[in-house]
């Protein structure tokens, strides 16, 4: 069953569910300034502050560039400002060129060139305000579910995640894919112990091999460091919530993608296809970075399941919070959008999954999520670590 919504048609043909002006800092050095510009320019202007330094090893830098350009190209973005200090190894103009391929207006702003933070904030505010005004003229158009790229995430998992919230979101993924859309889930470390199930669902051998290879790499990283994954996975919070092993966590985690065939697997922040069915993304297990990877890949809406009560959002994509824990729903209702805990009390999966799907439709049509109401806009870019770069080198 499809749904329709009124979205924002972009020059490249894709449809946004929000109409933000993005302020993208190329390093931590200008992240605060980006936030200040967004604050002073007012509603609809969103900064993506992050912690990446002004110079990174090549592969790590390329990943940062891919994320920044991808976020700028997300269809929820109407226009973008790429902000630099001017000493970064990342070239702001190159990011701007990449973002402008989607046809939206983009400007760069260099803090050193314009004479420091005062003039930069003032000029950034003027540009953002002008972009904001122009963005009101963007053509609003009716679109249907087939144009939605839906990113699904879990964070602060407990034992209810695998039995209530994740299968409910999985049901919504199945419905979206039946309507012709794309769903994407990620967090490769949380495939460990469940990869055989996903591998059996891959539609072609290449995807299957890629998936198993990526899971091996993530597992090998633990072995390369001579550490025991158990120290970090499941996290102490997961363990307190009843999850004993990574296998148990993974088996509960993968159900959030539903039951359809796995059509492909992309790299962190790589573009996701529109109308692509279920596609995996190779990301770390850190939820904020993982959400950002999918937003950089073009996801317009995120569903985020949490048993223990994570409150995080995203500056560019609305994040729908779904909990399967009745105590979390009672205590933290103001941070949650969908109560999946009624499954534990006997509601059918189709009923609760249907509520997630209806919420997706309403959010696509403009309804604000709990995280949007509270302006919870966490943003972090995954930084490739020396051991990962070394592992890539070993494996070619």
């Amino acid at each position, binding site marked *: 069953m499809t749904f329709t919504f009124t979205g924002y048609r972009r020059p490249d043909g894709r449809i946004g569910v929000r109409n933000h002006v993005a302020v993208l800092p190329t390093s931590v050095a200008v992240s605060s300034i980006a936030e200040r510009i967004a604050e002073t320019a007012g509603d609809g202007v969103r900064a993506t502050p992050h912690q990446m330094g002004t110079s990174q090893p090549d592969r790590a830098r390329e990943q940062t560039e891919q994320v920044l350009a991808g976020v700028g190209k997300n269809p929820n973005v109407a226009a973008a400002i790429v902000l630099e200090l001017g000493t970064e190894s990342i070239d702001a103009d190159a990011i701007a060129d990449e973002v402008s391929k989607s046809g939206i207006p983009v400007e760069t702003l260099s803090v050193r060139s314009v004479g420091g933070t005062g003039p930069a904030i003032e000029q950034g505010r003027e540009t953002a305000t002008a972009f904001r005004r122009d963005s009101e003229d963007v053509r609003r158009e009716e679109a249907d579910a087939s144009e939605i790229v839906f990113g699904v995430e879990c964070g602060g998992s*407990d*034992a*209810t995640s*695998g*039995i*209530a919230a994740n*299968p409910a979101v999985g049901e919504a993924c199945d419905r979206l894919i039946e309507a012709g859309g794309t769903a994407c889930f990620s967090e490769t*470390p949380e495939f*460990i*112990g*469940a990869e055989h*199930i996903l591998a059996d669902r891959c539609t072609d051998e290449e995807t299957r091999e890629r998936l198993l290879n990526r899971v091996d790499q993530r*597992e090998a990283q*633990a*072995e*390369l*460091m*001579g*550490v*025991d*994954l*158990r120290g970090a*996975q499941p996290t102490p919070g997961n*363990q307190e*919530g*009843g999850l*004993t*092993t*990574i*296998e*148990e966590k993974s*088996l*509960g985690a993968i159900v959030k993608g539903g039951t359809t065939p796995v059509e492909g697997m992309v790299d962190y922040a790589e573009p996701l296809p529109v109308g692509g069915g279920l596609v995996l993304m190779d990301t770390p297990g850190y939820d904020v970075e993982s959400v950002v990877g999918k937003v950089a890949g073009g996801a317009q809406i995120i569903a985020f399941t949490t*048993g223990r009560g994570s409150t995080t959002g995203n500056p560019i994509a609305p994040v729908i919070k779904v909990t399967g*824990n009745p*105590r979390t729903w009672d205590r933290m209702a103001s941070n949650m959008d969908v109560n999946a805990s009624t*499954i*534990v009390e*006997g*509601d*059918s*999966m189709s009923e609760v999954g249907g509520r997630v799907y209806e919420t997706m439709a309403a959010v696509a049509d403009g309804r604000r999520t709990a995280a949007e109401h509270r302006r919870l806009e966490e943003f972090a870019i995954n930084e490739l670590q020396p051991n990962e770069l070394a592992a890539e080198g070993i494996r070619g």
Partner: protein
Amino acid sequence: MKGEVLGDGVGLVLHADDNVATALQDLEAQDPIDGDTTAVESVPFGHKVALEPIADGDEVVKYGEVIGRASGSIAPGEWVHTHNCESTRGRGDLAEEGVAES
């Protein structure tokens, strides 16, 4: 909900092959679980309780899949968690010692 609910909602068995159930309430010692099995200790909401005897080294099964191995013998009604069930994956510590996982 998928799976079989035990009693009046004390626990949930996700797959017929499972040897553990997920507690849907905070369980106390003596609480009935399934048939003749009663809880032998407290099991918090969301945590696992053994449904049958699990010998040291045997597989612990939930969702019909292996989630780890018993690191000690586990009696029916016992709480199953990190103190008596170990992951077999991502074990860099074992790789270091040259004990390859099976």
